[in-house]
């Protein structure tokens, strides 16, 4: 089963510290992949300005890199910073890694007048175009193209991948780091199958397997939204559902749990907004997941969330102190990330809970599905 670790702190930290936490939980994965999502970026060699899109991915050949440069240039992007990883290729299993790129671009001047929504859509469409281009010959992999977010994915053992890319050198730090050590399940070892999954600022990672994957995938695909593609892993639907709920339906974050794991009918009958929630459950029934899963996510405003599926067979723990919080699928992972904390305040969410760490990081908040639902915000 995959292992998950996530840390959020007011002060940027190196992703390597999270990889060390992965090491503490190493019984649970098989080295089939590591995924890292960094948010709230800070580069030692570059003064990053908020809002500038960061492109993350791998070019598997020089020709692919050339094509990538050309495509971005054609679309009017200007390269501002190209992070050079201190790569040790001998530590990497795959042999077709021409260049790991993590680049900051300046967005086209013509976008200046555009609304935020327009810009965000265009950024996604650019990423999808690059991805599609890369899939033609499987020589270009693009994980994200978004302000303030970097994603690194590679096949191999997490710490080894961290060493291979020189992540211990503190040249890249971030306020949020999500990491997943992958246990390969039904699906082939594929870079796009590695968590965390990302779409328009929304990132999630999951452990366990979602057995309702196929009907959910069919539904999301049938919505014909440009970003709802991929599905090399059953867990990608979690990110897309979170995106759909918060961005398309414009529902508050609380709604996410009500969509993927709705309360039972008899529970909804006693709920103060039971009627609305029952209708929501019916309308969104095609997105009900069937775990066991633990889901961790982060939102564009640096809010982080942690929740379980209803079966709650994948416990996770959150712990920390004001200013820095860690979540992990195993308690030892939290210990490794924030050893000096009051462990008595650690919390393991129940089936009805969503744990939220707001952007201010002073505390974490526990929401329950049984709590009144903020209807006014729903409208």
């Amino acid at each position, binding site marked *: *089963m*995959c292992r998950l670790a996530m840390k959020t702190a007011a002060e940027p930290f190196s992703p390597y510290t999270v990889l060390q936490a992965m090491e503490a939980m190493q019984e649970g994965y098989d080295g089939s992949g590591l995924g890292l999502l960094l948010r709230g970026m800070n580069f030692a060699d570059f003064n990053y300005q908020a809002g500038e899109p960061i492109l993350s991915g791998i070019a598997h050949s020089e020709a692919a890199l050339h094509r990538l440069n050309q495509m971005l240039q054609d679309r009017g992007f200007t390269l501002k910073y190209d992070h050079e990883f201190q790569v040790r290729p001998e530590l990497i299993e795959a042999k077709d890694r021409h260049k790991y790129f993590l680049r900051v671009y300046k967005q086209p001047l013509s976008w200046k007048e555009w609304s935020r929504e327009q810009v965000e859509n265009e950024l996604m469409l650019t990423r999808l175009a690059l991805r599609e281009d890369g899939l033609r010959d499987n020589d270009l992999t693009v994980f994200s193209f978004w302000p303030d977010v970097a994603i690194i994915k590679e096949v191999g053992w997490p710490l080894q991948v961290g060493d291979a890319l020189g992540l211990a050198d503190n040249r890249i730090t971030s306020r949020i780091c999500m990491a997943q050590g992958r*246990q390969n*399940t*039904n699906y082939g070892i594929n870079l796009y199958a590695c968590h965390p999954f990302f779409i328009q600022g929304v990132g999630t990672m999951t*452990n*366990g*397997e*979602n*057995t*309702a*994957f*196929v*009907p959910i995938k*069919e*539904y999301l*695909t*049938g*919505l*014909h939204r440009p970003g709802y593609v991929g599905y090399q892993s059953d867990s990608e639907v979690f990110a897309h559902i979170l995106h*759909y709920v918060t961005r*398309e*339906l414009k*529902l508050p974050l609380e709604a996410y749990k009500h969509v993927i*794991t709705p309360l*039972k*009918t008899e529970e909804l009958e006693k709920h103060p907004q039971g009627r*609305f929630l029952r*209708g*929501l459950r*019916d*309308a*969104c*029934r*095609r997105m*009900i*997941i*069937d*775990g*066991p899963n633990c889901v961790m996510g982060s939102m564009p405003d640096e809010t982080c969330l942690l929740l379980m*599926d*209803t*079966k709650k*067979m994948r416990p996770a723990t959150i712990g920390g102190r004001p200013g820095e919080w860690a979540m992990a699928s195993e308690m030892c992972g939290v210990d490794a990330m924030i050893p000096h904390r009051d462990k008595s305040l650690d919390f393991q969410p129940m089936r009805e809970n969503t744990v939220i760490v707001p952007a201010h990081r002073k505390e974490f908040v526990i929401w329950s599905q049984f709590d009144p639902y903020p209807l006014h915000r*729903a*409208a």
Partner: protein
Amino acid sequence: MVSIRSIPSTPSSLTYNDLPWIIEHREDRCTLCGRCTSICPTQSLHLTYHRQRMPQLGILKKKRGSEYRVFTGIRQSTSLEHRCTGCGMCSMVCPNEAIGPFPNSNDDRARFHSHQKGEAWKRGGRRNDRHSLLDQLSFNRISMLTDPALDAGRHEFYLNTILGRVLPPEEYIRRQAAGEWIPPTREIFPFIIGSMSFGALSPNMWLGLLQGVAYCNEVLNIPVVMCTGEGGCPPWVLKSPFLKYLVLQIASGYFGWDEIIRAIPDMQCDPAAIEIKYGQGAKPGDGGLLMWFKVSQLIARLRGVPEGVDLPSPPVHQTLYSIEESVMKMIQTLSMAWDFRVPVYPKISGSTSAKAVLNNLVRNPYASGLLIDGIDGGTGAAYNVSMDATGHAIASNLRDCYLDLVAQGKQNEIPLFAAGGVGKNGNVTQNGMGLIMLGASGVHIGKYILQAAAGCLGNEKNRCNVCNLGICPKGITSQNPKLYRRLDPDQVAQRVVDVFMGIRTEMKKIMAPLGRSQSLPVGMSDALGIGDEPAARRLKIRYVC
């Protein structure tokens, strides 16, 4: 040329050996009690005198030759009207195991003579085809790795489905905010007792079913609903709190709707749904047919017709010009009758044109679902040829419709219900869950519930199948009190409860190894496999061997 009349043979003369069922009677065990002859629904058995030669073996005696014994024995009729239907009631009542019908392994010559007096053969029951594609489906995606199989006995499972139109999420939220109408939905058990009319079933059978359904709902928390079929239901039911477990059917004869409409002001609750019957899997293109001998005083009263007349419903609704028009008119009218609080959905026979109907419904904001009834569906009365050879198998028909909705991102907005052959060989849960994973939101069961809950004697080898004649030997489909008094409603209710408890357990036993428990696995086609490669290709599921 004048025929020889000394040999008693006409073109339609048959011997017992030409009939589909041969009665084997053991004279040595028979006590001539007469129970078999009196219970035989077709009066096939009759007492008659027989003469038996008693050979004289005394070789020393001067008198040669044989002596003869005359005795009373039982014989079967060779006339088609009184042929043995293989129901086996004779063996059920025989105290000495002296009699019973056996299928004739010889060719059934009787078939060639069934058009007596120019009337094509009619029967009730089923298609008489043991083959079932649904029986071949297996559930292969067993959770073995990071998603352990669940404990069917202790884990909590959500097994219910939704009947009624579900809005796209955006539209639901918009209408909620604007305070607009949200289409009604019902949370029901996905195995529904299919439409069998109050005229087709005996009062005791109907009462037993309703009692069982009420018990499932009120005591066991299994929200089973049953469909009335055409012909309404007794006024006391319409005005009772049990109405919420009933799907009222309106069909082309509109039988029973006077009573229903008059009862609306006195209804304590809304019905579960309204089903508009456009077609039926067993006899597509035919309307309902209630033979005159089943139109008793009670049935006549409920249907608002004279007693003892044939009640054929027209093949189509007479007020309509096309199904599109009908869908618009009837769905809206019936929705309006209950102030848009009750789901209204059409039932059609399986057909290559089902997708066209479906797409029409998708665009109708008041349509609440679609029930497709496949060729293996049963009926109370139909022409042989309709039942045997007209219609469309349910599996591919349903799958096509579901995948059509998937392509539009509208799966389950209009829930699809499937019927026709679910549990025909007894594997009701396996068949039903197979259809659900192919895309059905639920299934309707008719014949199975008659067999399991009331001991219907019919099978796929043309046993009994006399539902059309009002002579049902178990009292299930007869309006003759002498017959239906054989059936105890309490015992039927008990069996209904047994059946649904059994289905509930089996559903868990199917879902647990698949790792599913949070929602009904509608469209979970990755779980299905079949050992028939062309069928796998057609249904877009995995071929396993």
